[in-house]
């Protein structure tokens, strides 16, 4: 298990959304039965992350990418599978046992308007994590750390006593990044950190994230739906569809030769600035609901290369060499090259 910072094995996360007892009651063939409604957000996902790399998780809304990240950080208790941080198993730990790992794993959220407490000044926001995790630090040391981090993320330290509403979206996102960096983490999960920002500000924040990675040797898990951003910043990419992994490959490899039919369709849909009217792969139908997952391969109903086996059997994520993993019967059987 060397050289793996994070190792996830067969992670499962389901949400029971059936509500109260009365809401679960339904009439079937003249009988009242109790039915549960379960959203199967993440199903049997395995992955590992090397120290110092950026793994991007891509997929469309509802594919389970955010749930995966939150389960990994212990924000949701997983329903199955194992999570390792270096060699320690961290799923199922108590709050108290989890504390040392929380300082090493931090998260940056999408909406900097919602993720900062509006009633806390920048100073309070930034010192809270470090005072919590290092209670022995003196007041002046904490202040010094806050000022140092603010300088690093490009927010003027003289604004420490301001409140979040006094900052623009880009500045707020810098403050959320500063908050994540305060406790000197090794691993940062960034959940759509630039989707709420304008293009010119987006570039500023991406540069900041890349600089921080270089200076501190950070490992990132980057969750986004923006494939051009993914291509720019990540070392490996994992494509998810309906709670399952379709493909996991080194970035250049994935963009040059996508293998899984869903990855092909997804990449073809990116509008290209310089290629007007390029052709994209039209998928038939729509994404099924994660409440009622299709049997077999989750993508088979929309796949142009589907056969009878796809509707029956869930494809395994197979290693294809060169670090490329694909879950597709058509590729395994050689029907799709």
């Amino acid at each position: 298990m060397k050289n793996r910072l994070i190792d996830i094995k067969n992670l499962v996360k389901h949400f029971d959304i059936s509500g109260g007892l009365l809401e679960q009651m339904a009439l079937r063939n003249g009988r009242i039965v109790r039915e549960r409604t379960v959203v199967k957000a993440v199903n049997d996902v395995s992955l590992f992350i090397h120290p110092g790399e950026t793994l991007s998780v891509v997929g469309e809304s509802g594919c389970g990418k955010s749930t995966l990240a939150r389960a990994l950080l212990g924000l949701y208790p997983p329903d199955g599978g194992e999570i390792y941080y270096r060699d320690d198993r961290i799923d199922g730990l108590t709050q108290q046992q989890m504390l040392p790992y929380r300082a090493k794993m931090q998260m940056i959220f999408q909406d900097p308007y919602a993720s900062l407490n509006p009633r806390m000044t920048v100073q309070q926001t930034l010192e809270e994590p470090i005072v919590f995790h290092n209670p022995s630090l003196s007041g002046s040391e904490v202040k010094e750390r806050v000022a140092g981090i603010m300088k690093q993320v490009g927010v003027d330290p003289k604004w420490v006593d301001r409140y979040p509403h006094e900052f623009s979206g880009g500045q707020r996102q810098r403050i959320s990044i500063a908050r994540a960096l305060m406790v000197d983490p090794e691993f940062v999960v960034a959940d759509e950190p630039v989707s709420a920002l304008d293009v010119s500000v987006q570039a500023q924040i991406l540069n900041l994230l890349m600089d921080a990675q270089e200076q501190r040797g950070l490992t990132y898990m980057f969750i986004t739906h923006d494939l051009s951003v993914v291509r720019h910043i990540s070392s490996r990419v994992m494509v998810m569809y309906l709670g399952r992994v379709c493909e996991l490959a080194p970035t250049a490899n994935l963009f040059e030769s996508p293998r899984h039919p869903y990855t092909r369709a997804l990449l073809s849909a990116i509008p290209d600035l310089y290629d007007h009217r390029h052709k994209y792969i039209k998928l038939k139908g729509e994404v099924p609901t994660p409440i009622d997952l299709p049997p077999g391969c989750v993508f088979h109903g929309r796949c142009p290369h589907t056969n009878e086996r796809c509707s029956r059997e869930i494809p395994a994520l197979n290693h294809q060499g060169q670090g490329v993993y694909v879950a597709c019967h058509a590729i395994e059987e050689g029907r799709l090259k």
Partner: protein
Amino acid sequence: MNHLLEVKDLEVKFGLRMGDLTAINGVSFTLDRGERLGLVGESGAGKSVTGFAIINLISKPGYISGGSVIFDNRDLTRLTDEGMRHIRGNLISMIFQDPMMTLNPVLTIGTQMVETLQAHMDISRKNAEGIALKKLRKVHIPSPEKRLKQYPHEFSGGMRQRIVIAIALLTDPALVIADEPTTALDVTIQAEIMDLLLELCESEGTGLILITHDLAVVSQVTQKIAVMYAGKIVEAGQTEDIIDNPLHPYTQGLIKALPDGSNPGTRLNQIPGVMPSLIDIPPGCAFHPRCMIRGDICRRESPALREIYGYRSMVACHMLDAAEKQAGANVAK
């Protein structure tokens, strides 16, 4: 030939207690029949306000304080509410970002479509339903007869936006204004919706103003692009000219800031700072505090949008003016 739409020196202000704020400051452009224009800019550039101003839908405390919007030989800024009702939703339709907000959740799709038709023409419910079915087929909604009787929540996001497009096209408008129509949608659905919009505009000869922050999306759909910054158009021209050879430093910065896959892992070109708020737009050229090539004149005078010698695009930039004079002098020698 007359233009389908001619926006001239349009000015929109918002009257606040602290005084009037200028949201749109002298925007001019034209659109011919069947032509497609992309209005591009970041949040706060005034692109949506421009869209609303065209159909005279600026709500209080905002008002159109100057300029004209000539559509079909009529100045829309001077029409009465009654006269405007004949144009809005009839000759000019608008498509918004979030289809769930546009559709009425308690009425079936059929009722909403029939209502729209009956508001603009004397038509029986039965005939109106016939037209509605035809339009739903045009936007590729499967089994439209069944779908007419369903409510918006029974559709997925992509389907809802298709229905909104079908409603916008019910009256065969000459112009459709689409304000960020795919921003709330996933990338595969975005590709489908943009493809559909393009297909319909081409087959029906409908003019389109596509308002978006996404240059890549615009480059797929429109023939012309106007780039807005702080309430003004800073560069306008043919799509391929703007994309391949941007002239204004802001347009150049916007395009360079996009990760294009050529140098993964390297620092992106960033434009320093942020778009100014309407409350304190810098004097002179509004872009000068963020500009890499600014000169003294940029702090004092606001540059006009004009043609630059040797190029096809219109640009508002003093520094290009200076470069042009230099080039002119060289030619004269």
